[in-house]
C-alpha cells in the first residue's frame, strides 16, 4: 500500500470529522429556528451524521481468485445526514407568527449539552486523525534514513 493510500485513510477521517463538526455547528446555529430551510412546515429538525467504514478495494483473496478475506483498510465515509424525528419542545406563545392554532410554538429538538459533547468528540477525533497522519509521515521519513 503506497504512501498516498496510507495518507488517504487518515485524510478521510479528517474530512468526516470536519463534516461532523459542520453538522454540530449547524444544529447549534439553528437552535431557535422555528421554520425549515425550504419553507416547509414545522421547526428545524436536529440533523445527525451517519458514518460508515469504507472498503479499500478488493481483498487480497479476491484478487487471487479465491473467496473470502477482508478488504484492505480504506478509511471512512459519511453515509448520510438524516433528521432526528424526536418532536421538539413546545412553548406557549400565541403572539408568535409561527404559533399553531392552540397558541404553541414548537422549537427544534436540539439539546445544547448533547451538541457540545458531540463537538468535543469531533474535535478530539480530528486531532487523533492528525496524530495518525504524523505517525505515518514519521515512518516514511525513518525509511528514507535507511543506509545512513
Amino acid at each position, binding site marked *: 500500500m503506497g504512501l498516498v493510500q496510507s495518507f488517504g485513510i487518515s*485524510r478521510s477521517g479528517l474530512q468526516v470529522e470536519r463534516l461532523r463538526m459542520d453538522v454540530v455547528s449547524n444544529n447549534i446555529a439553528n437552535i431557535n429556528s422555528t421554520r425549515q430551510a425550504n419553507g416547509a412546515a414545522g421547526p428545524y429538525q436536529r440533523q445527525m451524521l451517519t458514518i460508515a467504514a469504507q472498503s479499500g478495494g478488493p481483498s487480497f483473496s479476491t484478487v487471487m481468485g479465491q473467496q473470502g478475506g477482508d478488504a484492505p483498510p480504506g478509511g471512512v465515509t459519511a453515509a448520510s445526514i438524516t433528521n432526528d424525528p424526536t418532536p421538539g419542545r413546545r412553548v406557549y406563545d400565541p403572539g408568535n407568527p409561527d404559533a399553531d392554532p392552540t397558541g404553541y410554538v414548537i422549537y427544534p429538538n436540539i439539546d445544547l449539552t448533547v451538541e457540545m459533547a458531540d463537538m468535543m468528540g469531533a474535535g478530539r477525533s480530528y486531532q487523533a486523525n492528525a496524530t495518525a*497522519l504524523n505517525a505515518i*509521515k514519521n515512518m*516514511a521519513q525513518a525509511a*528514507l534514513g535507511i543506509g545512513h
Partner: protein
Amino acid sequence: MIALPAIGAASALPALSLVPGGSASALAPAAGAGGGPNFGSMLSDVLGQLSNTEKNTTNLITRAAAGDNVDIHDVMIATQTEGLAFNTAVQVRNKLVEAYQQVMQMQM
C-alpha cells in the same frame, strides 16, 4: 584480499558502461547485459513524478490562499506528500551517484 565493493550497487546499475578513464560524461545509458531499466530513465521517472506532485500542491496552495473552498488538512497533506517525494528523489539520487562513484573507483 581485495573485497569487491558495492556488489549490490553494481547489480542495481546493469546498464552502466565502464569507460576506461572514468570521466563523468561516461554516465551514458547503454544497453546493459541485464536488460534492466537504465540509469537515465530511472532518474527521469522519479523527477517526472516529483513535478506532478509539485504541480498539484501549488495548485492546492493557490486555491487555499485565494479563499476557495479548500480544506486546510488537504493543503497540509499535499505539502507533506510533496516534501516526502522530494526527499525520496534526493535519496535515490544520492544512492545512485554513490554507487556510480564506487564503481568508477574500481581498479582495473
